[in-house]
């Protein structure tokens, strides 16, 4: 499981997750993801397009960080561009209704600035 990030500007951070976000993978990146996602930036886009598997542990990490970011007055959104497997998992658990989910990076970032 790999994690990288890019600060687009003073307001937006992109976080890229890559690989299998199963129980083991989620444990592997949990602390680093939380530190990056609960950011001083106003908005965070988590790119899941290269995630091959998303478990409940991975979803838990997304929810926790989204809630933390919201509590600080910020927002977190998800980009699942081209990843049907992850999109279906988010839909099956209703998470796509709690954390705004997009198929396009630009659309995701525009949503953060609203």
């Amino acid at each position: 499981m790999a994690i990288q990030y890019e600060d687009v500007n003073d307001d937006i951070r992109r976080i890229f997750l890559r690989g299998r976000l199963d129980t083991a993978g989620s444990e592997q990146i949990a602390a680093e993801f939380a530190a990056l996602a609960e950011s001083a930036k106003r908005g965070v886009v988590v790119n899941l397009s290269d995630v091959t598997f998303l478990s409940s542990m991975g979803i838990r990490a997304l929810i926790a960080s989204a809630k933390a970011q919201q509590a600080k007055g910020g927002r977190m959104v998800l980009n699942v561009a081209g990843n049907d497997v992850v999109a279906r998992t988010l839909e099956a658990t209703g998470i796509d209704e709690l954390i705004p989910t997009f198929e396009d990076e630009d659309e995701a970032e525009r949503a953060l600035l609203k």
Partner: protein
Amino acid sequence: MPSSATQPPAELTIRGDTWDARRASVWLASVALAQNVPREQIVRLDHCLDEALANVIAHGGPTALASPVRLQFGVRRSEGMCTAELAVADAGVAFDPSRYSPEPAPRPASLAEAKPEGLGLVMIRNFSDDLRYRRSEGRNHLTITVSWTEAA
């Protein structure tokens, strides 16, 4: 235990830890592909397996972690109706997923209300077509079933 008309069930024994859970996932994909299970069904089973093992590791207690977890996998086909069964047997505290999650959990109305606890059970129920549980000789036996149709 599940068995196809032509093959005995595939078996694997793992430790109760997250890295062996990943080994189990690799095994599942391998044996399922070998029996021509469609990729979409393998994904469903993979989710159920990861969540079932995560429950064993997180909630099964010391006996679950100290004892092997046994997996069996088999496929049955009959006139275009196909069923794949994945059985997970562990020595943890007694736990029946169907009993503790009889109805789909109501979805939270907002992010602030979201409680991630129990998501694993939600996912097992969402991704499977049937769940059967029994307790025998100090072990939990959970059988996860997915079904699909193929051109006969």
